[in-house]
């Protein structure tokens, strides 16, 4: 089948890529692996998993889908192009794609690109009306795309009885935060895409150090700071905590926004007049995060990207990750990639003693554009990909760790695989999660806001100055 053929080709390309890298050769200019700008959203620390068995045998029985009141074969013989970022979701779902092809008679063609390259290609594909991709990954630019008239709302497809079976699909099983994000991050009444992955901020800590210094797992920011201080001061080669400091709208502000909410403030108190970035709560949150990194973080915390945070923790160089994607878990606990795999424990992100627990959650969604030729076929793929049978198989059988469905996190088999505590922490965090509001100007004001925060973490200005300048810039940008 095509997806198998593509998979073989990709395996060959991967091997060739490794060979080339081994030979210290490669492209010369222009590309970017996303080190600086990667949002971390695409990082899973989860390598996908096994292929799912014999290529002749379907990974999931067709009977799982045939009881749905959906005319799966109405577009038999057609082909859909999927534009995807290099992500563990692709690895996890690819072995199951023959199931979709067999079920619908629709051929699936993958276009998987590195993050930065993907973003550029996506922009040109939808903004020029090329419509080459019928399905594509969508993230913080959802409202930028929607308000530009490039996205196609999915509502008419949901209303089509031959394409959607509400009872079978189980919409309520999708976390509210993910449904909210699939409605333009709360800015749209219509469906902008279907959520396929979700990650939520959690706290990681070194249980051996906690035992050694008799520390309690921190529930509040004050307790967290005290724990970080203890480890920072007691251990010579270990810093108290690590966290993202690098600029970029998926970097330092992705972490800080959680604390802003928990300090009782809100991004965009009133849109577009008041960004909320210079409110008392936002400044207090920024001061807390900046001081934490400056006092108990690594030297040069302002340039840390998610991969630095992960590798510092993996190498045993830090006592905590203050708050970052739960998707780090497999990478931190895998003995092959982590020197302290047996000592890593997970807990909910800390919150202020008098604040509300409100971690940030990010969901990738897959969407279709106004110019796509096969949007109906694309919708069938979205429904299939995010359905309960596919999601459960990806997570229980194929190593995934980012389910948008509550039932998967409650599945005993899955909980045994990932660990009950991790599943509980993730589930409870996702139930309380509050995603960022990605308005259409978010990429622009988010970038400026992150630059200001980065200079504060670097010590070039105070957190208050940074947030005040960020507020003023954001309001100017949005009101233009």
């Amino acid at each position, binding site marked *: 089948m095509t997806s198998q053929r593509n998979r073989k080709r990709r395996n060959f390309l991967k091997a060739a890529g490794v060979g080339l890298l081994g030979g*210290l050769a490669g492209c010369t200019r222009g590309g970017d692996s996303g080190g600086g700008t990667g949002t971390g959203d695409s990082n899973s620390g989860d390598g996908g998993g096994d292929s799912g068995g014999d290529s002749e045998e379907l990974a999931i029985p067709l009977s799982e889908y045939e009881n749905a009141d959906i005319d799966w074969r109405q577009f038999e013989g057609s082909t859909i192009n999927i534009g995807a970022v290099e992500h563990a979701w692709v690895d996890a779902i690819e072995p199951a794609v023959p199931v979709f092809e067999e079920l619908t008679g629709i051929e699936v063609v993958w276009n998987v690109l590195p993050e930065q390259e993907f973003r550029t290609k996506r922009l040109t594909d939808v903004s020029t009306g090329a419509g080459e991709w019928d399905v594509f990954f969508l993230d913080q630019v959802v409202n930028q795309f929607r308000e530009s008239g490039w996205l196609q709302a999915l509502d008419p497809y949901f209303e089509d009885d031959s394409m959607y079976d509400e009872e079978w699909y189980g919409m309520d099983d999708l976390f509210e935060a993910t449904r909210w994000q699939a409605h333009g991050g709360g800015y749209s009444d219509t469906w902008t895409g279907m959520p396929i992955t979700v990650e939520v901020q959690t706290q990681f800590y070194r249980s051996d150090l906690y035992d050694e210094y008799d520390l309690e797992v921190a529930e509040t920011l004050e307790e967290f700071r005290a724990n970080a201080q203890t480890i920072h001061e007691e251990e010579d080669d270990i810093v108290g905590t690590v966290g993202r400091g690098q600029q970029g709208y998926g970097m330092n502000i992705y972490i800080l926004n959680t604390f802003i909410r928990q300090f009782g403030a809100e991004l965009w108190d009133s849109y577009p007049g008041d960004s909320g970035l210079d409110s008392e709560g936002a400044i207090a949150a920024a001061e807390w995060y900046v001081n934490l990194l400056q006092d108990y973080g690594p030297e040069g915390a302002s*340039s840390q990207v998610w991969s630095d945070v992960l590798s510092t923790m993996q190498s045993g160089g*830090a006592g905590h990750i203050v708050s970052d994607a739960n998707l780090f878990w497999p990478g931190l606990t895998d003995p092959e990639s982590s020197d302290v795999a047996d000592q890593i424990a997970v807990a909910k992100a800390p919150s202020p003693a008098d604040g509300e627990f409100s971690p940030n959650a990010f969901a990738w969604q897959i969407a279709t554009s106004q110019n796509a030729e096969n949007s109906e076929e694309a919708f069938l793929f979205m429904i299939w990909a995010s359905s309960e049978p596919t999601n459960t198989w990806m997570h229980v059988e194929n190593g995934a760790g980012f389910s948008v469905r509550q039932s998967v996190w409650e599945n005993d088999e899955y909980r045994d695989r990932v660990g009950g505590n991790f599943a509980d922490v993730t589930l409870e965090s996702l139930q309380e999660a509050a995603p960022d509001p990605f308005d259409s100007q978010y990429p622009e004001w988010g970038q400026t806001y992150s630059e200001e925060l980065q200079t504060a973490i670097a010590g070039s200005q105070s957190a208050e100055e940074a947030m005040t300048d960020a507020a003023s810039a954001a309001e100017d940008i949005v009101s233009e």
Partner: protein
Amino acid sequence: MSTPTQTASQAPSGLARLRELWNDYLPYWFMTPMVLVMLLITIFPGAYDLYLSLVKYQLTDPNTVGQFNGLANYERVFTSGGAINSFVITITFVAGALALETGIGFVLAALVTGVKSDRMQTFYRIIFIIPMAVAPVSLATIGRIMLNTEIGIIPYMIQQFTPFVAPNFLSDVPLLTVILVDTWNWTPFMFIIFYAGMSSVPKTLLEASRVDGAPLWRRYVHVIIPYMKPVLFVAILIRLIDLFRTFGLVFSLTSGGPGTATELVSINIFQTGFTFVDLGGAAAIAIVYLVGIIALCNILIIKVGFEGVWD
């Protein structure tokens, strides 16, 4: 046109006329394909860029895309977009990296040329050229890890083997750091060109100066460097142009930060175009940048090249 053997009454046939045209303008015919290719890949995109810079082209505002905007894009990006700052940073980056790469490349070339054993010369050539073979993005990623204060080998070595405290490279001295990483990446380019240039200096000249009793430094100042002037000039010019185009290495290393401390013009253009989707603004910066680089390079070629090197 007629050949000496033709008379006025014997006009050439059509085929002969074509052959004459072919022969008379032979160099131009050979140049034509290249000129067409250049038109396609340079002049057309350049002209389109100029067009974009004069119209409103904010992708998120599709109703106004394509409206003539005069010089508003230029005014806007140069008064509010941080473009001026990025020009200053770029010039500092280019000057610093060029000076280091030229200096170190020359010294390395001189040292390797002085090695007596051919086998060892080959060994050093291979060793020194390796960083140039690594893609800038890969090198930046490796550099990030090596410079990381907690897990990087460079801060560790500084702490262990020197009396100095290792700086926080990417946050305390970001511009110097990107200059040093670029120097690491591209000094081999200068080295290999200078090495070839030095190897081509006639041995008789060197022997003569040695017989005359000139010390080593005099041989460099009065014989080797003057002889290598064209090589030095061309290498510096090529590297200068390439440095102005730097993007991947710095973008991967710092993303332009902290704040905007390492935001080169190329990064500014990228952000304006692909993050803020303001193609008109990005085109305006690009046009100013392009004109500036072309002007600088032409001044160098005319004033330094023709009047100093090839005079």
